[in-house]
C-alpha cells in the first residue's frame, strides 16, 4: 500500500464526448504491486470539497513503464473535478487497495459485465490471456455507442470471445446480459468474475447457482477511508450455516465469493 503523488501521462476522452468516458494514465509505483480487481483512492482536488478520496478500479497496469490506467465515467462532483486534471499534473494516490479477483490456473474464465462494470475486469482478462486460459466476456450495455466509448477496442485487442447485449438491440443480442447467458454454451469447468449493478450481479449469481463454477463478484459502495478503518462501506455476508456477518467492501473486497454475498440485504 502506497501513498504517492502520481504524474498524469495521459488523460483523454474515450469515444463519444457525450458518454462522459475518460481514460487516465498515471506514472505510479503502484504498478509494481497492483493485482486484478484492486483499486486506488484518488484525491481529485487539493481543496476540501469534495473532502474524501474517490475509489476508482485499476483498469490496466504496465509494470515496465510503471503506469496504471484508470477508466471512469463522469458522474458526480468528484469525477467532474478529476476530468479537469491535465497531463503533467500530479494526483495524490492511495493504493493498491482491497482484495482482488482470483486468477484461475487453468480452465475457462467467464467475465460478466454490466455497463462500466467491465473496467475492473480488464486486468483480470489480460492476466488470464497471458496464462493462456480460455477467456470469454459477456457484456451488457445501453447501446452501440456505449461500447464504442467504454473501451470495447481494448477487449477486442485481447483476441477473446466477446458477447454483447444492448437494451435497444443496436449491437449484439437485444436485452440484458442475462439474455446472453441464457443462450450461451458453457464449458464444464470454469470460473466466473462479475461486476456491474447489484441487481445484475445478484441475477448472475442466481444464474450460476446450478453450476459448480466459482463466481466472484466485485462490489461497489460509498467509501470513506478505503483501508478498512471506518466501516463506511460494508456489505452483508453469510456463511454456509447462514450466520450473517459484515464484510468491508474496501478491504475484505471489493471482490467477494458471490455465493457468500446476501444480495437483498436490507439490514
Amino acid at each position, binding site marked *: *500500500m502506497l*501513498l504517492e503523488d502520481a504524474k498524469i501521462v495521459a488523460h483523454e476522452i474515450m469515444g463519444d464526448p457525450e458518454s462522459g468516458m475518460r481514460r487516465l494514465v498515471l506514472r505510479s509505483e503502484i504498478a509494481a504491486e497492483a493485482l486484478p480487481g484492486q483499486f486506488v483512492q484518488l484525491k481529485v482536488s487539493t481543496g476540501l470539497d469534495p*473532502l474524501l478520496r474517490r475509489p476508482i478500479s485499476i483498469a490496466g497496469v504496465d509494470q515496465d513503464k510503471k503506469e496504471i490506467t484508470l477508466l471512469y465515467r463522469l458522474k458526480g462532483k468528484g469525477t467532474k473535478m478529476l476530468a479537469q486534471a491535465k497531463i503533467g499534473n500530479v494526483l495524490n494516490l492511495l493504493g493498491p487497495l482491497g482484495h482482488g479477483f482470483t486468477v484461475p490456473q487453468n480452465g475457462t474464465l467467464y467475465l460478466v459485465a454490466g455497463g462500466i462494470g467491465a473496467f475492473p475486469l480488464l486486468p483480470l482478462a489480460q492476466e488470464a490471456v497471458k496464462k493462456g486460459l480460455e477467456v470469454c466476456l459477456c457484456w451488457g450495455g445501453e447501446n452501440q455507442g456505449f461500447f464504442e466509448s467504454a473501451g470495447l477496442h481494448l477487449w477486442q485487442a485481447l483476441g477473446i470471445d466477446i458477447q454483447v447485449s444492448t437494451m435497444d438491440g443496436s449491437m449484439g443480442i437485444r436485452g440484458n446480459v442475462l439474455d446472453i447467458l441464457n443462450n450461451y454454451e458453457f464449458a464444464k469447468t470454469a470460473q466466473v468474475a462479475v461486476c456491474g449493478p447489484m441487481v445484475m450481479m445478484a441475477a448472475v449469481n442466481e444464474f450460476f447457482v446450478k453450476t459448480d463454477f466459482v463466481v466472484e463478484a466485485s462490489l461497489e459502495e460509498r*467509501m*470513506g*477511508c478505503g*483501508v478498512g478503518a471506518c466501516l463506511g462501506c*460494508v456489505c452483508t455476508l453469510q456463511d454456509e450455516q447462514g450466520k450473517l456477518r459484515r464484510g468491508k467492501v474496501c478491504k475484505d473486497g471489493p471482490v467477494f465469493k458471490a455465493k457468500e454475498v446476501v444480495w437483498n440485504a436490507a439490514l
Partner: protein
Amino acid sequence: MQPSKSALKTVNTEVKLGPLTLRNPVITASGTYGFGEEYAPLCPVERLGGITLKGITPEPRLGNPVPRLAETPSGLLNSVGLENPGLKEFMTTYLPKVRKLPTAAIANISGFCVEDYIHMARSLRKESGLAAIEVNISCPNVKHGGMHFGTDPASAEQVIAAVKAETDLPVIAKLSPNVTSIVAMAQAAARGGADIISLINTLLGMSIDIEKQRPVLANVMGGLSGPAVRPVAVRMVWEVAQAVGIPIIGMGGILSWEDAVEFLLAGASAVSIGTGNFVNPLAPLRVIEGIEEYCLRHGVSAVSELTGLAWKEN
C-alpha cells in the same frame, strides 16, 4: 525525530492529561482508525501520541445498513451504528494485537444502560495494557446509543462515576455537541470523576438525495464530521476549558497543524484526528511536525505551554 532547521533548541512534545501521559499531543479518533492496524503500513504508529480504538459494546453489533456515508461540503455524515465485534471478541482477538502497538491505546466503550458500561469497564483495567478508556456517551447513530447519557447531565455523571468505580485506567468522557449547554455536560462529567474530557463527537445532521427524494443515509440521520464542524468544536473547547479544570482532548475537523494549534490555544491539551485520516493518512504526522515547528517559531519550549493561550492572561 527530525532536527529543526534552526537546531537552536528542541521542543518537549510530551503532554500530561491528568494520569495519562502521551509522547505527543496527537491522537487518532475512535471509529476512524479501526483497532490500529489498518493505517500502520502508511503512518508509523510509534510516531503517534495515541490511538483511540473503534468503539465496542458488550455484545457484537452488525451496525446500520448502507449507505452509511454521505459527503457534504467540507464534511462527512456517517451512520455506522456502532458495528463492532463485541467485548469478548475484542478481548480475545484484538486486544493481544492492540497491546503490541507502540503507542498509547485508548479503548472506547458504548452502552445502552449503565450496566453495559460497568460490564466493560470491569474488563478494561491497567493489566489489559490499555492506556485509558474513553466513554462514549454521545453516539448519535443508535437509538438510545449512549446519546441519552450524553444529553442529560445527571445521566452523564452517573455513567462516568460508574465506570470510574470499576476501572483503574484513566477515564475520558467523550461529549456530544448536540446539547444546549456543553459546559453543563462537561461539569457533570467532572462531577462523575472523569480524568479527561474529549470533544466533540459528531453533530447530528442529514442529507437528502433530491433525485430520489429520499434521505441519503439508510439511517436517515447521521453524525457530521470534517472541517465543516471545526468552528463549532473550537468554540466548545474554548467554553469547556474555561469552565472545567480537567484536561481536554479537542477534536472536530482537524486536517492540518494549523487546525490543531487552534484547538490547543482554545484550551485543549491534546487533539484527535478523525475524518482527516481519510483525506490524508499522513495527517497525524504532519500535524505533529507542524506543532513542533510552530513552537520553535514562537519560542515555546513545551507543547503543553500552548494550552489555553488564546484566553489565558499573560
